[in-house]
């Protein structure tokens, strides 16, 4: 503390004050949102069921959390997302290493992956149904396809940023492609790969759940559509909030993992 420059000491209270103000603004915004929602719910301006009271939504969340059906659907969706992430990541990493290791291959094939990556992946669902049927495999395939592009681009970019000295050392030891991959490429690309997995997780969750809403008889997406068809709005809000929280938590965990590797 005694070695801190004078300017830093002068700056600290202002930074703290700003943080307090930011926390206060967050609390006020949250309070305004809650009050605004409750007023709208009780005003009768909209149909009562369209904007239910927050109390009803919280009660529905409680009921959902103790419902065994929720957990069976959650386990199916989790299985689909994990499988999609695993398959898409492995294929993406292999493709990324191959493309990223050669300027020629990168110029030849990377544009296809790059320009295909922002296309809406859900439109491939009819193809996946034809190939893998209406069960979980089609959702896994669609999720894997979604995270493949992110993973391949992230890995190829990571490959180009590996210190050339490391690659030359590997080659001077006459390491095989397999040894190069597991001893040099993958350890040197931890951060881009983990970032790719984090982004891939987001897209895999969205596509697997959307595919379940479109055509399925199990999973959280299917559950959303079942609740929607019953017009049980408080439970629909509750389930969507839970899904958003779970997706956010998964993203935060992978983000923290990627951050810790920097």
């Amino acid at each position: 503390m005694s070695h801190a420059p004078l300017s830093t000491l002068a700056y600290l209270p202002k930074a703290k004050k700003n943080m307090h103000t930011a926390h206060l603004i967050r609390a006020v915004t949250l309070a305004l949102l809650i009050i605004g929602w409750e007023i709208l719910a009780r005003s009768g301006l909209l149909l009562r069921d369209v904007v239910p009271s927050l109390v009803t939504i919280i009660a529905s969340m409680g009921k959902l959390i103790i419902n065994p059906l929720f957990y069976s659907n959650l386990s199916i969706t989790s299985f689909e997302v994990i499988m999609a992430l695993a398959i898409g990541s492995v294929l993406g990493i292999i493709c990324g290493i191959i493309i990223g290791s050669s300027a020629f291959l990168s110029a030849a094939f990377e544009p296809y992956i790059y320009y295909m990556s922002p296309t809406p992946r859900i439109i491939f669902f009819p193809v996946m149904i034809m190939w893998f049927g209406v069960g979980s495999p089609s959702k896994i395939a669609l999720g894997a396809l979604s995270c493949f592009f992110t993973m391949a681009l992230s890995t190829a970019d990571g490959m180009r940023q590996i210190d050339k000295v490391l690659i030359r050392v590997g080659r001077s030891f006459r390491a095989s492609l397999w040894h190069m991959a597991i001893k040099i490429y993958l350890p040197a690309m931890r951060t881009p790969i983990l970032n790719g997995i984090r982004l891939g997780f987001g897209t895999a969750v969205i596509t697997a759940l959307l595919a379940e809403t479109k055509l399925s008889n199990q999973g959280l997406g299917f559950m959303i559509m079942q609740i929607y068809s019953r017009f049980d709005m408080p439970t629909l809000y509750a389930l969507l909030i839970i899904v958003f929280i779970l997706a956010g938590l998964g993203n935060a965990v992978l983000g923290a993992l990627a951050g810790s590797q920097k």
Partner: protein
Amino acid sequence: MHMANVMKNDRLIPMLCGALCVVGAFGVLELLLRFDIINRYIVPLPSDVLGAFGRIVVEEDVLARCRETAYEMGVSAILVILIGIPIGAVLYRFDSLRKALEDWIAALAAAPIVLAFPLFLVLFGRSSTTVIVMSIANGLAPIILKTTEGLMSTRPVLINVGKSLRLSQRQMFWSILFPSALPLIFTGIRLSWTFVLISVVGVEFLINLGGLGQLINDLAERYDMAGTYAAIGFVILVSVVFFVCLEHIERVMGRRA
């Protein structure tokens, strides 16, 4: 000049090889299908898919569907700019507000909002309004964040010049801050519009309404295999052209700035 030609050749040859590989892969697929090694009921012949392009343009009225998707895209794209840039500017202007809400907006960008489409269907009905509102919700976060980032990255020397000229806040914004932030704002526009395109086509497909998304759904439900593949190819083509155009405009804007 010579170096430029060498550079062009350096890129041209791999690109040609890549294109030849893609064409070759389709050729191999055609042979595998014709020799019944792959089931034709699951994968249609690539030549049939090529032929189906013309058929869907004529029989499925692709132009009208494109117009509908373009309308939803256009309205969403304009509204995203009209809502997103002012919010970004307000967040820049009030430092505490930015610190308080920036994380929430970033979380919004990563949230699976499109999953809430049944909710939007209840609120807005099965209409273009649902598609537009959902697309705005999906595309808003990047433009807000990039506008704030662009305004914050204005060089202090430019701001000091403005202050020394005693510009009013409005003059400062329009003459210095906004032009300086324009390249990053356009990056935000590109990201937002990409999200909007994905959302428009995706929601059309999911709720079976409107333009190109519904076309894929219709053809798949009729089990028109070649048509479904051709429609998917058409949507990919539209997405790629749209994305390439946005990138080009972004590069031009960056150079001008």
